[in-house]
């Protein structure tokens, strides 16, 4: 099945995410499987206050692009097509933000052990 990245953008810093959102994240792989998809990989990011950016060799404090909704996590799913991927992405637990769905370019992410 083709793979899509689901980018999670949140206004709420990761350490302040409500407990029910965190619990929902733990249940996400099985809910995705119930709809016939698969979560291939998932990762949560530390707050953007911990980010360091490098642009043209210059190192600066902070995220690469300043936005109100900060990239908070990424996961990779397998889905039949865009409609299926969007249905799976809608399961993503969100406190105050949203997700972006992008098809991955012709290589497969494998689960790290």
């Amino acid at each position, binding site marked *: 099945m*083709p793979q899509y990245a689901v980018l999670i953008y949140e206004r709420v810093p990761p350490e302040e995410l409500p407990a029910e959102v965190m619990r929902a994240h733990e249940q996400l792989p099985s809910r995705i499987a119930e709809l016939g998809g698969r979560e291939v990989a998932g990762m949560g990011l530390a707050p953007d206050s911990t980010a360091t950016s490098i642009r043209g060799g210059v190192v600066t404090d902070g995220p690469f692009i300043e936005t109100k909704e900060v990239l908070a996590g990424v996961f990779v799913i397998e889905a039949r*097509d*865009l*409609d299926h991927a*969007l249905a799976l992405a809608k399961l993503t637990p969100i406190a105050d933000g949203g997700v972006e769905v*992008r*098809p991955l370019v012709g290589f497969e992410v494998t689960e790290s052990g």
Partner: protein
Amino acid sequence: MSSIEQAVADAHRREWAYVLAATVRVTRDLDAAEEAVQDAYVQALRTWARDGVPARPGAWLTTVARRVALNALRRRQTLEAKLPLLLEPAAAEPAEDGGIPDDRLRLVFTCCHPALAAEAQVALTLRLVCGVPTADIARAFLVAEPTMAARITRAKKKIATARIRYAVPAPNELPERVDAVLTVIHLLYATGHTAGSGDTLQRDELTGRALDLARLLHALLPAEREVAGLLALLLVHHARRDTRTGTDGRLLRLAEQDRSRWDGALIAESDQLIVAALRAGPPGRFTLQAAIAALHAQAPSYAETDWPQIRTLYDELLRIWPSPVVALNRAVAVSMVDGPQAGLDEIDALERDGRLAGYRYLPATKAELLHRLGRDSEAVVAYQAALALADNATEHEFLTERLRSATDSAQPGTRVP
């Protein structure tokens, strides 16, 4: 134009979507299918001149286009690996016209997929479903041809790369997806109906295409009540199309239009659709808008319009579709039932709401009501605000004249700066 050229042009208008949709099934690539179909129409010009117009031009064109596509595929197969469009398993599908299934709905739903930008949905629908050349689409939307070409290319690329299915949505997704298609068709009509800028108020090509699309969709999805509702709405608009401007090109208000020139046959057709849709279940936003437009179309005069019924329909429309534009139109109906002050109160509330800031019809409507109340110096200010927002020459002229009339009625000493 020779009779053969006319026959090919007719077949282009009537059969393009059918031929392209069937050819996509062979190529699984929109660009390759378009090329093959264009080639088939060129061959039709030559062959039909020699052998006569075939009994079923659509079937003839489809057979030729698919043969052209297959030959091209054989030549290219080893050269490139493309991202194929995602087709549903082709099993157990109703076949028409010599075994070729009618895939036009797949084409329509693919072009109007909500993951594509609204402007791209409109452009793709015109290009792929109606077969309108990119240059003409660009002209209709007042952008440069390369800009429009890039917009269409980007959308096609997203369909393939993000894997938007070439398919009719599942029944549970159908209402939402049908609504997206209807929105595209309505936008197309609205663009042609009142050009946002430029000198002509209507662009007949666009309104005609939108009407064709609505008819096509209604034929393909006869049970969808909102499709009937949209078709009815466009028919009523179309029935009034020749009376919207005077002989001098001036914009005429509904109250001033010559009702004897409205197209009675279109209004009757629309009425049948509305009655059937209303009987079949609770009305959606297009059916309600059509019912409102039809009440206007059937009234003997502006004053004798069934305003209480129109207000009731607007109440219901606002309930299912809480849009500030609907609220503004409802305010006009309120003013006709309860007087201009009641309408003005609604408009004041809308102004405070702020969502219609920059929408030219808000100050224009407010000005009309102030004018009716005899508060002409305030009306002058509102007309000036509307004028600053109007960029269509015909509308500009209309508002200028209304401003002049309000200025004349204003208290002596009131001057228009």
